[in-house]
């Protein structure tokens, strides 16, 4: 049980990078971008092919991010230059990328169990430094060694990678260009009226968004030990679920807080996922349905709570008014 949770946190951190990408397109640019389903696999496919070909895994991972960046830029161009509705532009890219991904991979599935991946490099590096001994010490100290994971290297390295991505993103979104990007999503015609080529910002924003998605895909295939052409199915919904859960549970207005909330949202999603898998009557194949239900609930419930709160308040004030009226009448009667 506890070990499954460690696994959930690990995947949560890896998929958090994808969720940050979705946050840029969905929340900052207000562009519901379905490219994600394709670009996630594109990133993974490029990384897998390069790793199998013997490329340095760090370079392969970055190449995956660049592949995602290119895919995102194309979606942005379809929307801005081609005047295609955002949803449709994303769907078109998602479909097109399916074929592109198969071309890149050459086969629907690439196993990479014995390849040198980013994680195998990290693992041997980690073991040579005997860092597990340091991390397990507190567990031994409290006497709960059974609850400790087998190794800490994935969690620690993913925390580091996710935080680096978060910090870079925080910094970028507060630069002059980053502020303009956010304003473009907020009020495009206003930004235009201050002499800014908003199309450029939309294309660049979509590129950055999908670069993060591609990076996440590249990390996921290395973590899984294989790349699969169907890996991206429903990825956008997982991203949305993470963003929305994060916003509802941890969200605040500030950018720094929002990026953290998205990362935490992704972890919470994975924890819910792994818990749901432990319920007897649910099967792994039900997960897409559960994900959809989580997103629907996260979208609908806050709204309903708000409404019922307003309703209660209205009833309360009405009752209070009624009471005052009764009292007033009583007083009136007594004076007569």
């Amino acid at each position: 049980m506890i070990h499954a949770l460690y696994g959930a946190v690990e995947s949560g951190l890896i998929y958090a990078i994808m969720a940050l990408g979705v946050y840029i397109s969905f929340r900052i640019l207000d562009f519901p971008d379905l490219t994600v389903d394709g670009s996630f696999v594109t990133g993974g496919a490029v990384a897998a092919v390069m790793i199998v070909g013997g490329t340095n895994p760090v370079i392969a991972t970055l190449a995956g991010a660049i592949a995602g960046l290119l895919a995102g830029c194309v979606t942005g161009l379809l929307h801005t230059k081609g005047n295609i509705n955002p949803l449709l532009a994303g769907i078109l890219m998602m479909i097109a990328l399916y074929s592109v991904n198969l071309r890149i991979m050459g086969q629907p599935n690439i196993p990479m169990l014995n390849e040198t991946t980013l994680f195998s490099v990290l693992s041997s590096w980690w073991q040579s430094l005997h860092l597990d001994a340091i991390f397990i010490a507190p567990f031994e100290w409290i006497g709960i060694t059974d609850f400790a994971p087998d190794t800490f290297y994935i969690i620690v390295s993913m925390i580091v990678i996710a935080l680096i991505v978060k910090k870079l993103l925080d910094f970028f979104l507060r630069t002059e260009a980053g502020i303009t990007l956010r304003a473009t999503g907020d009020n495009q015609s206003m930004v235009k009226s201050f002499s800014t080529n908003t199309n450029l910002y939309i294309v660049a924003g979509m590129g950055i968004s999908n670069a993060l998605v591609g990076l996440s895909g590249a990390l996921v295939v290395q973590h899984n030990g294989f790349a699969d052409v169907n890996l991206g199915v429903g990825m956008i919904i997982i991203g949305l679920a993470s963003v929305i859960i994060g916003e509802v549970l941890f969200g605040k207005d500030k950018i720094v807080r929002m990026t953290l909330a998205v990362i935490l949202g992704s972890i919470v999603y994975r924890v819910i996922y792994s818990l749901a898998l432990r319920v007897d009557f649910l099967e792994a194949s039900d997960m897409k349905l559960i994900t959809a239900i989580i997103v629907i609930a996260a979208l609908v419930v806050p709204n309903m709570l708000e409404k019922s709160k307003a309703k209660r308040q209205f009833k309360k004030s009405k009752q209070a008014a009624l009471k005052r009226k009764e009292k007033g009448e009583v007083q009136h009667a007594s004076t007569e």
Partner: protein
Amino acid sequence: MLQLNNIHKTFYPNTPDERRALHDVSQSLEPGDFVTIIGSNGAGKSTLLNMLAGTLLPDEGDVWIDGKDVTALPEEKRAKLIGRVFQNPLSGTAPGMTIEENMMISLGRTKRRSLFKGVTKKTRERFRELLSTLEIGLENRLNSKVGLLSGGERQALSLLMATFTEPKILLLDEHTAALDPSKQSLIINLTKDLVKKHKLTTVMVTHQMEQAIDLGNRLWMMDEGSIIFEANEERKKDLTVPDLLSEFENIRGRRMASDRALLAK
């Protein structure tokens, strides 16, 4: 500073819906001129303003700003020369961002955007100083979301953002129409102050004749796509609303067909 040569614009040409929006409009403004444009709905005021801003291309004719032919220059490029305040207070600012971030965006007219930190201490001080000239306390709310401001405050901010980078031309598109009377006079006074301070060449469209007479040194009256009457600085000094209405009747042989223009004080 601004020159319009024989501008023509027809919407939906060669269809039953054909509408002549602008017909042979030629005008020029000297640096520092402040012209107010009045006219009933559909007279072509907004079309003219959009033509200046670059949102619409003329069918014929050309637009010159500061000695440059800008007719074919797209909106965002032309915006380097033009400051603009819209009728809707929501249009000129980004609601989800803070006051200082909005101010930051308006700097885009004067320089390229960098990958350096957006709002530095120095720019923040400058913004604070500029905002304090509005005298509505925005200088103490630099980190408030603009969406939390009232319509009047947002419009005042829009006005400041459109002017402080000193564009060649300032376009005001009925920028007080959506506000209540007290806020209207606040914005009108700010407009006067800011235009004077930065010596801006200004084009203002309004539905309110008194406003049109009160502000600026020139006045154009438009009807059916043409400027049918214009008043220069001297003529404008003793112009009254009844004067304007009778001028319209004399020229057009009919009454001005806009209850908004008539009713508005």
